[in-house]
C-alpha cells in the first residue's frame, strides 16, 4: 500500500495531522468510489439505461460529542488538507495526538460473488428483465402495465484513521423490481415486488429469487387486490406474515435501539437496560453477518467488524447498536453499526439486518387462533416517532382472518400504534423466520443506507387498523 487514490503515506500523515491541529479525539479519512447502473423496461420496451460514477473522500474530526465533517470530490493532497482544516473547526480540546503507523484491519467475507454484476454484459440483465415482463404479462389478461427495473452498484471504500486503522472493502448490490398494474375495466390496482442483495447475477438463479417468481408475485397481488374489500377500522388482532413484516420491527423498535437516540435520552428505550420492555416471546437481534443480505457488510464504515447484537432477549433490553462515538460516550463496545451513505457524510449508528428470533409455534397454528383479525403480508413502508415510539405502516397486501382462516383481500390497510406497546402484545411467535430480499433502504438524518429485515410469523393481540369500514 504505497498510495491510496493517488495519495502517499507521508501525505496521509500530513492530512491527519492537519485535521488534528486544533485537538480532537479521533480523525478518519474515508475514500469512496461508486459505480451504479440502471435499466428500465416499461410498456414492453427496454426504455432507458443509465450509468453513474461518483467518487470522493471525506474527513471526520471528533472532539468529545462534536463532529466536524468536510469532503472533496477531487482527491488531491491540497483539497484533502483543506477539507481537514474545515473539519477541524469544531475541535477545541488542544489535545496532542500522535499518528499511529497504518495497520490493516481484519474484515469478514460475506459477499460471494464470482463476477461483479456491473462488469457483466448488459444483455444478461436485459434477459432477466424481459423474463420478468413476459411472466407478469402472461399471468393474467387483467395485467395492463408492467414496469421492470434492474439496478446495481459497486462501492469501493477505503478508510484510514490516526489510530492506524486501515481497511478496504468492495461492496456489490443488485436489485430487480417488478411493478404491475391490474385493470378489470372497473378498478385499477398496482403492486410491486423487489428482490436483491449483495451478490452477483447468480443470485437470480436461486428459485425463490428468480425473475419468474417476482413477476408472478407482483402480478398476483395486483390482480388479487382488484377484489379487495375496504378494511375494518378499529383495534384488531393482527398476524404479521414472515419476512416482509420485519419492517415493523425496523421502524417501531430498531430505531429506538440505535445508540445515538438512546444516549441523548431521545428514545423510548433510553436508560432501560435490564428492564422488561417486550413480551417474553420477543428476542430482537441485529446481525450484519448473514451472507448476501442487503444490510450485511464485511466491515462497517469506520472499521468495526459487524456482529450479531442481541438488543432484546426474551423481552428484556440487553443493549443498543453502536458506532465508535456512541460506544465511547456510553462506555460500551462498538457493535459494527457505524454506517454512512457515502463519503459526503459521517457515520452514525444504523441497523444492518434486524430480525426477531423464531419461536416454537407453527404458522398455521397462529392463524387458526384468530377469530377475527388481519393478516398483514407485505408492507409499503413505515414511519416512527423515535421519542415516543408511535408508528404508522402502510400494508400493501393484507387479508381478513375469519374464524381461523384467511379469507378476503383487504384494501390499503394502515397499522398504527406504539412500538414498545406492540412488542408487549406479541402473543405467539412462529418457527418460520424468513428474511426479506426486498430493496429496503433506510433513511435517517438525510442519509440512506441499504438494510435487511427478517421476521417469523407473529401474532399481536391488537393493533389499531385504519380502514374505512366502521
Amino acid at each position, binding site marked *: 500500500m504505497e498510495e491510496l487514490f493517488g495519495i502517499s503515506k507521508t501525505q496521509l500523515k500530513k492530512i491527519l495531522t492537519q485535521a488534528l491541529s486544533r485537538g480532537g479525539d479521533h480523525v478518519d479519512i474515508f475514500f469512496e468510489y461508486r459505480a451504479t447502473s440502471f435499466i428500465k423496461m416499461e410498456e414492453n420496451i427496454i426504455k432507458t439505461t443509465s450509468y453513474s460514477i461518483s467518487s470522493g473522500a471525506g474527513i471526520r474530526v471528533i472532539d468529545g460529542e462534536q463532529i466536524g465533517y468536510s469532503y472533496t470530490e477531487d482527491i488531491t493532497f491540497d483539497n484533502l488538507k483543506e477539507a481537514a482544516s474545515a473539519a477541524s473547526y469544531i475541535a477545541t480540546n488542544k489535545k496532542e495526538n500522535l499518528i499511529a503507523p497504518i495497520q490493516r484491519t481484519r474484515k469478514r467475507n460475506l459477499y460471494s460473488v464470482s463476477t461483479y454484476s456491473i462488469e457483466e454484459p448488459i*444483455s444478461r440483465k436485459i434477459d432477466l428483465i424481459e423474463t420478468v415482463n413476459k411472466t407478469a404479462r402472461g399471468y393474467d389478461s387483467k395485467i395492463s402495465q408492467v414496469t421492470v427495473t434492474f439496478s446495481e452498484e459497486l462501492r469501493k471504500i477505503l478508510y484510514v484513521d490516526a489510530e492506524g486503522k486501515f481497511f478496504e472493502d468492495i461492496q456489490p448490490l443488485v436489485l430487480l423490481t417488478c411493478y404491475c398494474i391490474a385493470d378489470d375495466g372497473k378498478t385499477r390496482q398496482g403492486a410491486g415486488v423487489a428482490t436483491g442483495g449483495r451478490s452477483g447475477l447468480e443470485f437470480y438463479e436461486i428459485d425463490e429469487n428468480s425473475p419468474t417468481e417476482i413477476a408472478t408475485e407482483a402480478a398476483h397481488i395486483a390482480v388479487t387486490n382488484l377484489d379487495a374489500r375496504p378494511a375494518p377500522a378499529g383495534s384488531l388482532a393482527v398476524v404479521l406474515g414472515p419476512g416482509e413484516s420485519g419492517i415493523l420491527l425496523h421502524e417501531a423498535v430498531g430505531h429506538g435501539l440505535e445508540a445515538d437516540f438512546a444516549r441523548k435520552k431521545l428514545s423510548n428505550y433510553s436508560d432501560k437496560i435490564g428492564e422488561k420492555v417486550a413480551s417474553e416471546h420477543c428476542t430482537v437481534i441485529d446481525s450484519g453477518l448473514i451472507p448476501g443480505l442487503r444490510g450485511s457488510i464485511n466491515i462497517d464504515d469506520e472499521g468495526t467488524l459487524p456482529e450479531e447484537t442481541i438488543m432484546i432477549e426474551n423481552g428484556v433490553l440487553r443493549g443498543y447498536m453502536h458506532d465508535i462515538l456512541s460506544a465511547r460516550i456510553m462506555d460500551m463496545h462498538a457493535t459494527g453499526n457505524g454506517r454512512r451513505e457515502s463519503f459526503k*457524510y459521517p457515520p452514525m449508528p444504523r441497523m444492518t439486518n434486524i430480525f426477531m428470533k423464531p419461536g416454537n409455534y407453527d404458522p398455521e397454528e397462529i392463524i387458526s387462533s384468530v377469530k377475527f383479525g388481519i393478516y398483514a403480508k407485505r408492507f409499503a413502508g413505515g414511519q416512527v416517532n423515535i421519542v415516543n415510539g408511535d408508528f*404508522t405502516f402502510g400494508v400493501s397486501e393484507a387479508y381478513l382472518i375469519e374464524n381461523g382462516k384467511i379469507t378476503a383481500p383487504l384494501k390499503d390497510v394502515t397499522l398504527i400504534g406504539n412500538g414498545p406497546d406492540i412488542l408487549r402484545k406479541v402473543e405467539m411467535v412462529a418457527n418460520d423466520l424468513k428474511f426479506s430480499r426486498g430493496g429496503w433502504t433506510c433513511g435517517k438524518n438525510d442519509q440512506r443506507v441499504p438494510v435487511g429485515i427478517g421476521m417469523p410469523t407473529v401474532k399481536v393481540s391488537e393493533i389499531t387498523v385504519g380502514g374505512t369500514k366502521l
Partner: protein
Amino acid sequence: MDKLKNLAEDVLKILKRHSIEGADVIIVNSKSTNIKIRKGKIEELRFSNSKGIGIRIIKNKKSGITSTNDFNTEKIEQQITNMLDMVQYLNQDPFVGLPDKSITGRSHQEIDTYDKMIEVIPMEDKIRITGQLEEEGFKYSKLIKNSEGAQWNDTSSKIVLASTNGFLDGYETTNFTLSLILVAEKNGSRQTDYWYSKNPFFKNLESIGSIAKKAAKRAIRKLSPKKPSTCKVPVVLDPDVAADLIGIVATGCLGTRVFMKNSFLAGKLGEKIASDKIKLVDNPLLPSGVSSRPFDDEGVTSRKNVVVDSGFLTKYLCDSYSARKLKHPPTGNGSRTIASDPISGISNFYLEKGEYTPEEIIKSVKNGLYLTHVHWTGVNYVTGDYSRGAEGIWINNGELTYPVQEFTVSGNVLDMLQNIEMVGNDLQFRDNISAPTILIGDITISGR
C-alpha cells in the same frame, strides 16, 4: 458559472463527434453548510461541495444517461463511448427526444433566485443564530426538557444546461433553512415536535423567536394525548396537512404517472375532480419560491400552470417525453437529477387561498378534528385510497380542546377533494408545496 458553461460546451463538442440524434448535458454544483447544535453544543458541522455532470444521449430513437462527478473530459468521453455501446441494447421508442427548440429558453419574466447574503454571512454568525434558536426554545417553557437540536442549512447551487439543439444557459439558486426539534415532558407524557423556516432569501426567514415559539408550542400542545373513538366527523386540515394532501394531487397529475395509468387522475382531464372552491397552481416563477427557476431541467421555458380551476382538472404537469406521449401541450415540468432521465416534477405547487380565517373554519365545527400531522405511507396513487396515521387536536363546539393521537384518517383523495367545504385565507409559501387551512366534510377516523 462560466467554467461550467465551458465544460458543457466541451462535452457537446465531444458528443457531436459521434453519430447521434441529439444530446443534452446538465451540470450541477452545490455548496452547503450544515450546523446542528444540541443542548448548546455543536453536535455536527458539515461542509459540502458537490458537483456532477449528467449526459443524455439519443441515438436511433434510444436514450441513455451517463453521469459522473469527475470533470476530466477524457474520462467523460470514455463514459460517453461506453454509453453508446449500452444504448444499442435498448428498444426503439418513437417518443424519445429532446424538447423542440421553439419551447425552450429562459422565461421573459425575470425571477430572482439568488441571495448574495450567502457569500457574506460569517461562520460564527451562523453558529450563533443556530445556538440562539435552540436556547429560545428551551426558554419558552419549563416543559421543554430535551432537544433533538437546532439546525442551520444554507445551500447555493449553479445549474447549467446545454443541448445539441443550441440551448446553453444557467442559473444560480440559494436556500436557507433554520429548524428546531423540541421534546416536551409532563407527568410521564413525552412529545416531540418541530418548526422550520425555509426561503431562498435570508431576510425572508422567520425570526428565531417565532420558530422557537412555534416548535415549543407544538410539542407542548401534544402532551397527554387521548386516543379518539372510531367515528366519522368533519376534519380541519392545518396548512401543513393540507399541503400534504395537495402534494398527493400534485403527484397524481404528473405526466409520467398519467401515461402509465399509475395515477388516480389518469383519464380525468377536463373532469370536475374537486369542490368549486379549489384552484391548484404550479408556479416556477413564484417570487421567493423555494423551487423557482427560469427554465426546467430540459430547458423548457417556465410558466405558471393552473392545474385545477374551480374544481376542474385542466392540465397535467409534463416533461417533454410525457407531453409527447399524452399529446399534451408543454408545461415546463421536466425534472431530473444528473443520473436520471427527465421525468415530470412540480416546482412551487399550491392551493390558492380562500376567504375564511383559520379561526372561522375551526369555529364552524361542532364536533370534529383539527389535523396537525399525518404520517407518510398510506396513499395508493393508482386508486387514490388514503389511510394515514395521524395526530391532531379534538374540536368541541368550535374550540380546540385536547390532543389526540394513535389513530388513522381514511378515505379516497378524490372524495376528500370533492368534500372540501371551506378554504382558509392563511396561505403562506413555506416550502415547495403550500396550502391554507381547509375543512373537509366527514372523514373516517379509526381509533379506539
